[in-house]
Every structure is written in structure tokens, then in C-alpha cells.
């Protein structure tokens, strides 16, 4: 089966290389049949990789420990669900997943556009196949998940070897959010290859209007959504599974997923300016190149071992190849942009600095500066090592101090941006638009000051949150009132129809609302409290308004792990409100590696977060750590609102679908008859 898997990957590589060269040849010779065969090769390579993936899943499910990847990331007693999820539990398998997602995305693009954009598609296919071939080469020759274990005999000969049991899946990965987190994150990282491919194709074919942007808008949004959901799931996993009481530690690998998300957010905003005004064309092409490269950079950080991280695959030798690939892509893209600069000129001028266009410019600036700050902090240890010979650590104190001011400026712009009109905003209309949000924000600020709040960032953050909240509410209110006046609908129906009639605008506002909610949650960090105590059953500890009474400690055994579980009764105001059971697990196959199972009582106002940190040295007492984390609930709720807002913007338009259907029919007929459709 392992040979079959490698064969499938080799076949897929041949097909993707054929797809690359045939599509270019077809474009140069203007031979539609050759292009079509390249597209079929792209879909066939996708099928080949699917077969390889199924082979590896079979090997994982049947615990074939003669395969290195299976032996390193599973064990016999691991539940089937986790055995299958071990596909991405180690480096080689995760590369196969990466390749598979890349191939599926390429296949979908080819299928979706089989009758459209015939001038661009050969180049789109070429870029997609170039990208796929690169990853396939790495996967087959440097990181093959089908490699078999061999042992060297005393006489120097080598023979295949199958250990009786595997090393087991990293216990930290045995959590539901961690199981779906990597694939979702991959969807986000990889998806940006599609807008990138269309941008390059547009540059080559000199079709630099907004066609490539309209075509890839949904791709970009879906990709951005996946990346965002992946980030949130990673945070949720860290919060619930790592047991230190937080959800974001500014780890280099965490940062590497944040960077393309920030650049992607900038791109999503700036394309609106190009669509509406025909401006920022160079900037948009540059942004999509940067976003795509940051996705590759993320996997470079994870797989190169250049930076220490608990999430990184440390022993990989792939780093240098990623570096060459990134340089090649960057160089090629910049050359193309420079060569096509004349086609990238703005179609309109900026009428006023006080305009929506300017707000988008500043939004892009802040998002990219935030992205740069994360990149700078992530890479500074490497830089410091080169310059001073000392590899220093750049951790949360740096990112918080640098990131908070930039984040707050972005929050301000989230509220200010929509208040500006396109082209030009008069001072009078600005005064009118700003009045209510300013008053409400000032009221919040004064109330907080009167309540004794003196933390500058907390004050600014809550004040801005209220400001943005009121601007969003104002937008919905104004639109709904107009709709009620013109249609006579009731408020709820008018609100829903308003949103559905302009999904992009109002879906965007819902996403902005989610940003506010997430900022509320993040600001809660300033009030976190923590206490630890060595306890025995009968002992009590106090944190905030809660009294925790330990009532029991129990040890148990499962086929996969042993555990110790404390039982604590939680009292508030003298009343029993909850029983919590934090747990410590010791995984048998992973040399007793332990994980923390946090007990969580989550409410919108605050989370009570209890951890069984361990036992005292004499083994007679149990170390209980309790955290009270205010407002964390709003981070997860905000993330859910963000998903909802993005889905609203993604809802299909009936009339657009009708138009597209007409288009495909017309073009399909032309293509079938061999007539080139322009």
C-alpha cells in the first residue's frame, strides 16, 4: 500500500507538470485542445493525490507501523478518529494534506471556469500547477509519508522493520478543535493561491481591469474566513487544552497564520476601491502577491526549524526550498508588475482626502503595519542572532506593547471609515455622522472614569468599541428607516431585507460588529486574576467572588491514558453554583506525556477557569490553579458573528446566478463548436 501511495503521488506529479507545460504551450500556440488537456491533467492529478491520501488513511487505520509516519504518529490503542486525524499529526502527512488541498482547489478552479475566462485560464492553470508541482516534489522526494522503517543488521545490511506499537499521537493534539484546526487553517493558507493565480494571469494577459478581482472575490472571502476560523480554533484549543489561562501566546507559528490573515483583510478592503473607482490596481496586485507569499512563509516557519516553537515541525530540511520558491515567486511577480505598470494606472483620481477611498488607504496602511510588526517580532530573534550572535526571545510583552496601539487605531478606523462618503465628504455631513457615536463614546469614557477605571488602554478600547458600535447601529437604523418608509415593512422584515438586498455592505458591517465584540473580549485581559493553592479534599480557596472547595480526588485508567481528576464545588455568595472537575492525563504511548484538561465555567461576564496543575513533591497535595478571566466569552461569540457576517456577504445573488448561467450556456456552445469566445 505504501508503494501504491508513492506511485499515486508520482503520477500526480507527472500530471501536474504536464498541466503546467501544456497550458503554457496551448496559450502560446493558441491551441484550445492543448489547454483543455492541461486542465484535464490538473483534475486527474487531483484524483491521483486523493488516492494517495486514501492509501495513507488506510495505513493509519490499520496501524501499519512499517510506515514511518504511522509509527511516529499513532499507536494501537488510539481511537480510530484520532488515528485518521494523525494524517496531519506529523510533518510528512501534513504535507500530503497540504498537497491534497492545493490539488482540490486547483481542480475546483479548473472546473468552475471551464467555459469562462478562456484567455486567462491557461495561465491560471500554469500558476496553479507550478505551485502544486513544487509541493508534490517536496512531498515525494524530501518528505514522503509513505517512507518505510528500516533497521540496519549487524552485517551492515538493511531490512524492513515494523515495531510492535507506534509512538502515539501527540497528546496535545487529541482534542476536537485541534483535529479540525489544521485542515481549516490549511484551507485558509492555501486558498490564496487562487486569487494569486488569477492576478498573475491578468498581468500576463494584460487584462488588468477588475475581472480578476470579481472572479476571485468569493475565493478570497472564503479563504479569509477559513483562515480566521482556523486562528480562532487554535486559540480555543490553546485556552482549553494548554491550561495556562490564555488563548494567544504570540508563538511564531500562531503569528505566521495571523500575518496572511491581516494582509488578506487589507486586500479584501482595497479591492472594493478598485471595483468602485478603478483605483489601487498596482496595490491590489502587490497585496495578493504578499498575501500568497505570507501563506507560504507560514509553512516555511513551521517546517524550516528556523524559529523555536512548540507548534513547529523541528526536524524538517525543507526550509531552504521554501526560501528559494518564495524568492522566485516574489522576483517573477515584481518583474511582471513592473513590466505591466502602464496597464495598472488608476482610472480615476482621488477627489478628496476626506473620502472613503482615503479611509481604505489608511485601513490598508494600518493592517500592513500590523502585519509588519508581527513579522518583525517573529523574525527578530533570527536577526538578532545574525547581528549580535544571541538568539533572544520576542514574546507577548513586545507584541502587546506594539500591537495594542496599532489595533486601537484600526478599531477607530473601523468606525470612522463607513462614515465617509465615496469621492468627497463635506465637513457638515461628517459632523452629523459623528455626533451620536461621539456622544455615546464619551458617555462610556466618563462612566468608566467615574467607576475608577484608570488603565489608559482599557479606557480607549471600551470608548472606541462604543463609538464603532453606534456607527454600525446608525448605518442599519438609517437604512431600515428608509426601507420602512418606502415599502411599509415592519422593522424586523425591513432590517432583514435591507441586509439581503445589499449583502456585501451590511454583511461587512456585521463583520465590523464582530471586530468590536472581539475587542471587548481582548480588553478583558486587563482584568485577569489568577491564584494557586496546594489542596487536599476539604480545603477551600478563594478567587474573586468564587469559593472553591475541593471534595474529591480520583485516579483512573483508559486504554489510551491514565488520569487524575479533582472535584471542586464552586460557591458564589454562599450558594453552590457548579461542580468542576479539572483533570490531568498521562498518555501511555507518549512516554507518559501529560496534558491538562481544564474545567471551565464560561459566562459573558467572566470565565472561571480551573486547572489541576499537578501534585506536590510528596504527592499528598494537589496543586489547583484558578483563573478568573473577564469577557473571554465575547471573543468566541465575536468569532461566531464574524463567520455569520462573512456568510451573509457570500450568499449568492439569484440574478447574478441567472446571468452566469446564461454566460456559461452561450460560451459553452461556442467552445464546443471551436469558436474562441472573447
Amino acid at each position, binding site marked *: 500500500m505504501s508503494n501504491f501511495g508513492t506511485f499515486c503521488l508520482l503520477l500526480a506529479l507527472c500530471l501536474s507538470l504536464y498541466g503546467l507545460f501544456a497550458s503554457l504551450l496551448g496559450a502560446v500556440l493558441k491551441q484550445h485542445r492543448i489547454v483543455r488537456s492541461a486542465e484535464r491533467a490538473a483534475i486527474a492529478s487531483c484524483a491521483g493525490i486523493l488516492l494517495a491520501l486514501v492509501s495513507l488513511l488506510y495505513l493509519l487505520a490499520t496501524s501499519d507501523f512499517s510506515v514511518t509516519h504511522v509509527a511516529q504518529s499513532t499507536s494501537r490503542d488510539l481511537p480510530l478518529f484520532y488515528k485518521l486525524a494523525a494524517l496531519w499529526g506529523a510533518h510528512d502527512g501534513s504535507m500530503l494534506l497540504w498537497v491534497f488541498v492545493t490539488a482540490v482547489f486547483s481542480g475546483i478552479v479548473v472546473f468552475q471556469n471551464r467555459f469562462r475566462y478562456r484567455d486567462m485560464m491557461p495561465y491560471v492553470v500554469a500558476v496553479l500547477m507550478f505551485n502544486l508541482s513544487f509541493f508534490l516534489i517536496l512531498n515525494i522526494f524530501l518528505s514522503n509519508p509513505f517512507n518505510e522503517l528500516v533497521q540496519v543488521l549487524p552485517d551492515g545490511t538493511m531490512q524492513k522493520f515494523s515495531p510492535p506499537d507506534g509512538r502515539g499521537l501527540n497528546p496535545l493534539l487529541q482534542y476536537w478543535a485541534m483535529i479540525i484546526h489544521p485542515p481549516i487553517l490549511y484551507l485558509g493558507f492555501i486558498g490564496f493561491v487562487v486569487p494569486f493565480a488569477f492576478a498573475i494571469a491578468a498581468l500576463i494577459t494584460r*487584462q488588468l481591469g477588475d475581472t480578476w478581482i470579481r472572479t476571485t472575490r468569493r475565493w478570497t472571502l472564503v479563504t479569509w474566513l477559513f483562515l480566521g476560523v482556523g486562528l480562532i480554533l487554535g486559540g480555543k484549543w490553546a485556552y482549553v487544552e494548554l491550561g495556562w489561562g490564555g488563548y494567544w501566546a504570540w508563538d511564531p507559528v500562531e503569528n505566521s497564520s495571523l500575518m496572511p490573515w491581516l494582509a488578506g483583510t487589507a486586500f479584501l478592503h482595497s479591492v472594493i476601491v478598485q471595483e468602485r473607482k478603478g483605483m489601487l490596481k498596482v496595490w491590489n496586485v502587490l497585496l495578493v502577491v504578499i498575501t500568497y507569499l505570507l501563506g507560504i512563509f507560514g509553512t516555511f516557519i513551521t517546517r524550516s526549524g528556523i524559529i523555536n516553537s512548540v507548534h513547529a515541525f523541528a526536524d524538517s530540511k525543507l526550509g531552504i526550498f521554501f526560501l528559494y520558491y518564495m524568492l522566485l515567486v516574489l522576483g517573477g511577480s515584481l518583474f511582471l508588475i513592473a513590466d505591466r505598470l502602464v*496597464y*495598472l494606472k488608476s482610472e480615476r483620481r482621488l477627489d478628496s482626502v476626506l473620502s472613503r477611498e482615503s479611509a481604505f*488607504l489608511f485601513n490598508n496602511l494600518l493592517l500592513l503595519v500590523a502585519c*509588519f510588526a508581527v513579522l518583525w517580532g517573529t523574525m527578530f530573534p533570527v536577526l538578532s542572532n545574525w547581528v549580535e550572535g544571541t538568539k533572544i526571545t*520576542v514574546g*507577548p510583552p513586545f507584541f502587546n506593547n506594539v500591537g495594542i496601539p496599532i489595533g486601537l487605531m484600526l478599531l477607530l478606523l473601523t468606525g470612522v471609515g463607513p462614515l465617509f462618503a465615496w469621492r468627497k465628504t463635506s465637513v457638515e455631513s461628517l459632523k452629523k455622522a459623528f455626533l451620536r457615536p461621539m456622544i455615546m463614546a464619551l458617555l462610556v469614557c466618563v462612566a468608566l472614569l467615574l467607576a475608577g477605571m484608570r488603565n489608559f488602554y482599557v479606557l480607549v478600547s471600551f470608548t472606541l468599541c462604543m463609538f464603532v458600535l453606534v456607527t454600525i447601529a446608525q448605518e442599519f437604523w438609517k437604512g431600515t428607516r428608509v426601507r420602512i418608509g418606502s415599502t411599509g415593512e415592519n422593522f424586523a422584515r425591513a432590517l432583514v431585507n435591507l441586509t439581503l438586498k445589499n449583502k456585501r455592505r451590511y454583511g461587512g458591517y456585521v463583520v465590523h460588529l464582530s471586530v468590536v465584540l472581539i475587542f471587548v473580549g481582548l480588553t478583558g485581559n486587563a482584568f485577569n486574576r489568577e491564584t494557586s493553592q496546594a489542596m487536599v479534599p476539604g480545603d477551600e480557596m478563594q478567587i474573586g467572588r468564587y469559593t472553591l472547595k475541593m471534595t474529591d480526588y480520583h485516579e483512573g485508567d483508559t486504554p489510551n491514558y491514565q488520569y487524575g481528576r479533582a472535584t471542586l464545588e464552586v460557591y458564589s455568595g454562599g450558594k453552590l453554583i457548579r461542580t468542576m472537575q479539572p483533570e490531568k492525563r498521562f498518555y501511555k504511548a507518549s512516554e507518559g506525556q501529560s496534558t491538562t484538561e481544564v474545567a471551565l465555567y464560561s459566562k459573558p461576564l467572566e470565565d472561571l477557569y480551573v486547572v489541576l496543575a499537578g501534585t506536590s513533591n510528596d504527592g499528598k497535595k494537589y496543586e489547583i490553579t484558578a483563573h478568573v478571566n473577564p469577557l473571554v466569552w465575547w471573543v468566541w461569540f465575536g468569532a461566531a458573528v464574524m463567520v455569520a457576517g462573512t456568510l451573509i456577504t457570500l450568499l449568492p445573488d439569484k440574478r447574478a446566478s441567472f446571468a452566469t448561467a446564461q454566460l456559461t450556456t452561450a460560451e459553452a456552445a461556442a467552445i464546443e463548436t471551436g469558436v474562441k469566445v472573447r
Partner: protein
Amino acid sequence: MNSQATYGREHRILSGLNGWLLLLCFWAAAAPAAAPRDISREYKEACDRLVCQCGCNEQLSVCAMQNCSSATPMRAEIRERLQKGDTVDLIVDSFVVRYGKKVLSAPTTKGFDLSAWVMPFVVLCLGLVVVAWVAVRMARSTAETVEPEPPAVDPRVEEELKEFEKES
């Protein structure tokens, strides 16, 4: 006589002392037991400023490995020294002397490390200048139209889509 007088004086002194001792005992019993100093805030600060040296590269407040060979003794030392009255700065400095700068969770504000803190804001300022320049330049320049892009799709459909977007 002398001895009697001496005895009487000693007795009065001892009686007085006993009285004071008794009072002291009552006071000691009545006074609340001296509580250990609350060091939680300083402890959290020190643990946030230092990095575990086990290789996880996490702050001491984040490393969650049970009985970690690095974090556990470092935390114990911090707790002990804070109880003795050492300041957070003093404790952090002593760890830097022992392990070097890599034990700090953020760059210092001296020498090359300072560039870590300054650079994002330098980029922000440069970006602001560039954006302002671009905005002013774009506002001044007249519209320059490029060659119209040949429609990639049927013009009728393009028209219909534009119509639809205007409506929405």
C-alpha cells in the same frame, strides 16, 4: 536588712516584668497572625517577563508542563525571593546574569534590541508619509485612462450584471 531590701526590689522588678510579659502574651494572642505578603501581582509580572529554559520558548506564566525541569525551580525561586522582599527587577536581572538575554520574554531597550521596539513605529510613520503623498498625488493628477480591457464575457451579460449592481 540589706538582703531583704534587695529581695524586695528584685521581687517588685520581677513582678513588674511578669505583668509586662503577661500583657505582651495577651497582645500577641489577640493580634492577628502576621500574614505572608501578597506577592501575586509581582509574581505574575516576573513570570511574564521571563522565559522557560526547557526549550518550549514560552513565558514562565505560560509553560504548562508538569514538573518542568526549568519552569518549576525558576518559579519557586521567584516566589521565595519575592517573599524575602526582593523586587521584580532585581530577580529578573539575576536571571539575566545567569542565563543571558534569552531568558527575557521581550527585547531590552538598549543597543540593537531597541530597533525591535522602534521599527514598527518607524514603518508606520513612513507609511503615513507615503499614503499622504500618494493621496495628494492622486488627488492632483488628472484621470488617465488605459486601453479598455477587452470584455472577457458576453457584453450583454456584463451589461446585465452592471445593471443589477446599480440596482442593489
